[in-house]
């Protein structure tokens, strides 16, 4: 059989398996993001937002839409791959893949695509929720989709590496709790860094999530605290590094082979 056809069948099997998995448990995977987004819009958008006034030339509720959508994408792309791959290690059904003639890059691509699919699903749900609170006129569909997909890919890769090193289910919640959530909250989801003192502005520039949120905000609203080109370069750079690192871990069998 043609190698590439074989790889495509293996990849699509993995992707469909992942989509079916998170769809079956949508109450645990998709619904929580929708509920927390409704709460953010009610509290920050309506109750507090109206007292905050405009930000970056937009009403506060409009300003936070891109960040909230991307927050859902980041956390879901990450946790989908982290929990799914770790479960396959824990219950040993990762062996189904390891004994099959599936190259490592196809295994990685399948899990990452699953994470992107869940990020996309949650992103759509959060956007639909947002439409209940405000009107969104998309500034650039191309940039919006590109940032959306690349960010999901990046954090899906992060989830994959987390799952490889994880030795317990606790280990896959440490990074989201202590790294991902703080970076996302401090990444300009709820504010423009122009509001911060210079020192904190400079420190914020070391937070990669800031670049993604701002690039996404540029795609949706046409405003950004940083240059969009720099954001793309950063995201792509991280994707390349994490991809090669993930493939290195798979080749060595770290965490999955003895």
């Amino acid at each position, binding site marked *: *059989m043609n190698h590439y*056809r*074989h*790889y495509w*069948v*293996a990849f*699509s*099997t*993995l992707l469909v*398996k992942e989509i079916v998995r998170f769809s079956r448990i949508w109450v645990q995977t998709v619904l929580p993001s929708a509920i927390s987004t409704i709460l953010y819009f009610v509290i920050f958008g309506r109750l507090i937002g109206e007292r905050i006034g405009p930000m970056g030339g937009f009403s506060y509720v409009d300003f936070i839409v891109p960040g909230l959508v991307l927050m859902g994408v980041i956390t879901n792309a990450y946790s989908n791959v982290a929990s799914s791959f770790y*479960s*396959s290690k824990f*219950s*040993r*059904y990762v*062996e*189904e*893949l*390891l*004994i*099959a*003639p*599936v*190259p490592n890059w196809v295994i990685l691509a399948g899990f990452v695509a699953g994470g992107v699919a869940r990020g996309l699903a949650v992103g759509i749900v959060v956007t639909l929720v947002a439409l209940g609170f405000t009107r969104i006129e998309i500034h650039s569909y191309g940039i919006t989709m590109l940032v959306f997909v690349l960010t999901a890919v990046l954090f899906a890769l992060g989830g994959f590496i987390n799952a490889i090193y994880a030795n317990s289910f606790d280990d896959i919640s440490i990074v989201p709790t202590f790294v991902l959530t703080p970076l996302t909250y401090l990444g300009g989801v709820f504010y423009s860094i122009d509001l911060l003192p210079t020192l904190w502005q400079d420190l914020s520039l070391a937070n990669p999530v800031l670049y993604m949120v701002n690039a996404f905000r540029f795609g949706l609203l046409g405003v950004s605290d940083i240059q969009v080109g720099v954001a793309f370069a950063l995201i792509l750079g991280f994707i390349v590094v994490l991809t090669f690192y993930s493939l290195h871990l798979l080749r*060595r*069998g770290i965490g999955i*082979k*003895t």
Partner: protein
Amino acid sequence: MSALAVRKLTKVYRNGHEALKGVDLTVEEGDFFALLGPNGAGKSTLIGIVASLVNKTGGKVRVFGHDLDREPESMKAYLGLVPQEFNFNLFLPVIEVVLNQAGYYGIPRREAGVRAEYYLRQLDLWERRGSQMRMLSGGLKRRLMIARALVHRPRLLILDEPTAGVDIEIRRSMWTFLRELNAGGTTIILTTHYLEEAESLCRNIAIINDGRIAEHVDMGVLLGRLETETLVLDLKARPAQLPRLDGFVLTRLDDRTLEVEVTKDSSINRLFEALSRNGIQVVSLRNKQNRLEQLFLALVENNKGGRDISP
């Protein structure tokens, strides 16, 4: 052609444990091969390396001429594995476990569906195709692992303790299925702790002990090395006195049971004639110990002391 060729295979775990110490092993195409050894001898490590689940330290592995290091994908396409431990997603339905495995081997969904139905029917699992894995009994899970391992039609099937914890009825039906599979041309390597299973199914045997192949021989030749067999005779009535018979050692186990040690050169006919002459009627006869088990224990025991392996 060799279905499996292993050369100078070594494995040293990170904790320094040397699980394999230069294993050489060849299994010919079409064989039904037993790989036996005591716990911790290196069987599962050897199988794990062949199946790409364990990284080797040194040596070569080839499956139908395809090298593990140079052509891993081609090699894997020839190989099917039924592992010792259950390795399923317990929340998936039976049919999806098989279909997903087919997908990993590049088998398109429609063809995978046909094959899944065939093997699930063969192993009496078709009616349970919609059940989640966690709802299946141990025996059904074992059979599903065989169906999953066969869906890509491997030419070499490795079964690591396939009947462990399975009741005798299912075990016998699995034996029949495996015999038919082997007759159809699939090379089978079997590890088992039921030595009766190995003796009944396999034509060739390797015994691994302490990381080395201690024996690699035709099953008939190995069994032919038995110098003595111990028979247990159930008697109709309590014998007044045990006769003295040249070439046999008789021991009374209880009122109606005798144990007789028979040397390889003795005739059992002579034994029965002598018993009849002494008015002792035998109701039934059985081996005290499975023949392969007797050899296996002697081999492992003698090997510890580095002596000859003849029992």
